[in-house]
């Protein structure tokens, strides 16, 4: 018998992340490197432990190898607990047969037994592709005060951006009375952040009912939340006012990285009271060479930098040789940029090598037709030969 846990977190990490193209061909989106020394999943995992939630199920399905190895026994996040801790939960075969996770709700449904082992009062449902620092305990306190069946974290977004999100329409007490998915003419500016707290007994009943409905698409946003509203359950919105970003696309991944070096964006990675933990690469401190120019950037351990770095995020073990220029770009772990190469407005995947004098991406001011401009992407483990050019907006997934 396990000790009872008041609250268990379930982290949805099984999505393919197809809009990150070459960056998610061999790794699941939550395992994509972010912010020089992190991977995306470090943010929700660190939030869990910092919020006092020490039992986390990570639901994986697509390309789980890197993610499983990264999470390991959960020790880097202090989630190697005797009771609880982090558990990777892939789909598995049961006596009744085996099936893949067919939707977000189905993934939780298939793991009802895992949740029940801890006999929780509440379950937090999280996404593996958001960058933010949030105290889930504050949200849980609110959920309890409101005696809600479900609480949805919402962000007040600018009106012009509201049509990109799922929008919650609330009454004066922030009870959710209606919602609309990516509305053309939004009736509210409260966007769902994809973070839910459920009273477990309620959620369990709706998961089972949804599973028995053959027509349903087994999804939280499409089924569970609407079903709960129709049945008259109390659904409330909890307003979050910190930094939050969904990094599901190339552009948003690039922007979220750049936000970390923007002094006007309120996400502080240096707060000792709310550290973002990650698996340590065991490398020497970075060496900044005699010819280096480094400004307005973040760089981490194991790097050898002798070129020019501006407005960029440089992950562990990266080499930037003399005369190379990195501008407004993201270099993922183990990249090598050879002499004289230029990487501008680009993302270079893990362990890729950019040959001497190659040009990756371009600055928008140097492009006349703005429609052809965008962030260039070089996938993981690729070689770009000396002198080659990768056009802006191009996505490279083979050697060239």
């Amino acid at each position, binding site marked *: 018998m396990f000790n009872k846990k008041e609250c268990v977190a379930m982290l949805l990490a099984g999505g393919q992340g197809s809009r990150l193209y070459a960056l998610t061909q061999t790794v699941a989106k939550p395992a994509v490197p972010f*912010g*020089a*020394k992190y991977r995306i999943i470090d943010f929700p995992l660190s939030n869990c432990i910092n919020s006092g939630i020490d039992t986390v199920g990570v639901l994986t399905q697509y390309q789980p190898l890197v993610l499983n190895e990264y999470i390991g026994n959960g*020790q*880097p996040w202090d989630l190697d607990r005797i009771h609880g801790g982090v558990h990777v939960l892939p789909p598995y075969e049961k006596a009744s047969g085996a099936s893949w996770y067919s939707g977000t709700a189905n993934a939780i449904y298939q793991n009802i037994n895992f949740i029940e082992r801890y006999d929780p009062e509440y379950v937090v449902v999280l996404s593996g592709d958001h960058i933010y620092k949030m105290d889930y305990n504050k949200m849980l306190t609110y959920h309890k005060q409101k005696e809600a069946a479900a609480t949805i974290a919402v962000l007040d977004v600018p009106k012009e951006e509201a049509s990109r999100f799922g929008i919650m329409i609330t009454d004066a007490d922030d009870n959710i009375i209606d919602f609309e998915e990516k509305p053309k003419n939004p009736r509210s500016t409260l966007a769902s952040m994809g973070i839910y707290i459920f009273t477990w007994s309620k959620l369990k009943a709706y998961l089972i009912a949804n599973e028995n409905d053959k027509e349903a698409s087994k999804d939280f946003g499409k089924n569970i939340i609407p079903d709960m509203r129709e049945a008259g359950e109390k659904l409330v919105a909890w307003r979050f006012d910190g930094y939050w970003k969904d990094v599901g696309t190339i552009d948003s991944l690039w922007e979220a990285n750049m936000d970390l*070096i923007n002094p006007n964006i309120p996400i502080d*990675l*240096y707060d000792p009271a709310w*550290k*973002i*933990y*990650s698996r*340590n690469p*065991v*490398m*020497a*401190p*970075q*060496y*900044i*060479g*005699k*010819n*280096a*120019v*480094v*400004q*307005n*950037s*973040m*760089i*981490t*351990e194991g790097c*050898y930098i002798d070129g020019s*770095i501006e407005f960029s*995020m*440089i992950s562990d073990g990266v080499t930037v040789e003399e005369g190379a220029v990195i501008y407004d770009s993201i270099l993922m772990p183990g990249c090598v940029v050879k002499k004289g190469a230029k990487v501008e407005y680009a993302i270079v995947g893990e362990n890729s090598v950019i040959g001497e004098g190659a040009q990756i991406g371009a600055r928008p001011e140097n492009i006349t037709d703005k429609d052809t401009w965008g962030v260039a992407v070089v996938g993981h483990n690729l070689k770009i030969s000396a002198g080659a050019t990768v056009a802006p907006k191009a996505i490279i997934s083979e050697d060239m």
Partner: protein
Amino acid sequence: MDVNMGNVLGLVFANMHDMTVGDLTKNRTMGSILFGGRYRLIDFPLSNMVNSGITNVGVITKSNYQSLLDHLGSGREWDLSRKKGGLYILPPFGNVASRIYRGRIEALYGAMSFIKHALADYVVLSDCDIVTNMDFKPIVAKHVESGADITVVAHTGVYDSEVIKESTVLSTDENGRVRSVLIQPDIGGTCTASLNIFVMSKQFLTDMVTDAISRGNVSFETDILQAKCGELNIMAYEYDNYFSKISSIASYLKANQELLDPENASKLFLPKRAIYTKVRDNAPVKYDLDSSVTNSLIADGCIIEGEVENSVLFRGVRVAKGAKVKNSILMQGTVVGAKSEVNYLITDKNVIIGDNHILNGAPSYPMFVGKGASV
């Protein structure tokens, strides 16, 4: 010759040579001196042992060991948190017979029950004053092959008299057998200096210690190496890889600054033989719009808004706008205020240097600011 490194016990002396760098060991052991931006000196012998396959390691300590215990924890970061073997910390008064030791022999005597119970036939002993990436396997193999009683790892080279003053110097015959020993002699130039790393069989070690204690001998160097080099088969193992020896505050500065040569750093930080240390979960280094950094080693958690040149910055150092840091070693949590200028400065942990200060040392006599001081 192939040896089974699982059959080797490691012993690390955390406090030996404390007095040679008194400023740095005021609040800590030699082993817990900060080095190279994110390490402590004990990380080198511990990582070398683990990377050589030695996974049963005792750390012998004497005094001032609070920071050492905090650093080592369960030994997990060196992969030494194990059911079989792993890390053992051996403080004084570990048993009725042990006390504050006066020399290496008494230190070993205090750890005798640990040594006797270890499942090992050989023992590698190391101090913390040598910074290197050393594979113990060929050394143990050579020891077994040669049939020596004691193997002393040593390096023949040109030394300053300042370094030799803190060393044991060996004279060997053509076979590498040690024929005479000088302890802390006042000489310089070419000589063979001990790196304070030794290999013995467990049986020889325990017999030697028991015998020496019964005669009232306390010094391994004087009473064994020097006094018995005719009688015992003591072999020198010539070690030629990159290393640096910490024997004064000036050599500490030099050893740190040597890492600014990528050639040296690449011999110390090998990708397949990593140096492990305690993880602190700092964020990456943030470089501000007006920062200028050249030829420096910077650890995570630093925020740099000013200029840094030829320096080593430990984790979480802040260099404010307009500040200039040259030829310096700034330990964990040091803050250099706006428009302050420092040159040949060593700061201990958590030193705060206010705005508009100028602090200058010299290469042979770097300025040192103690732990937690505010300037």
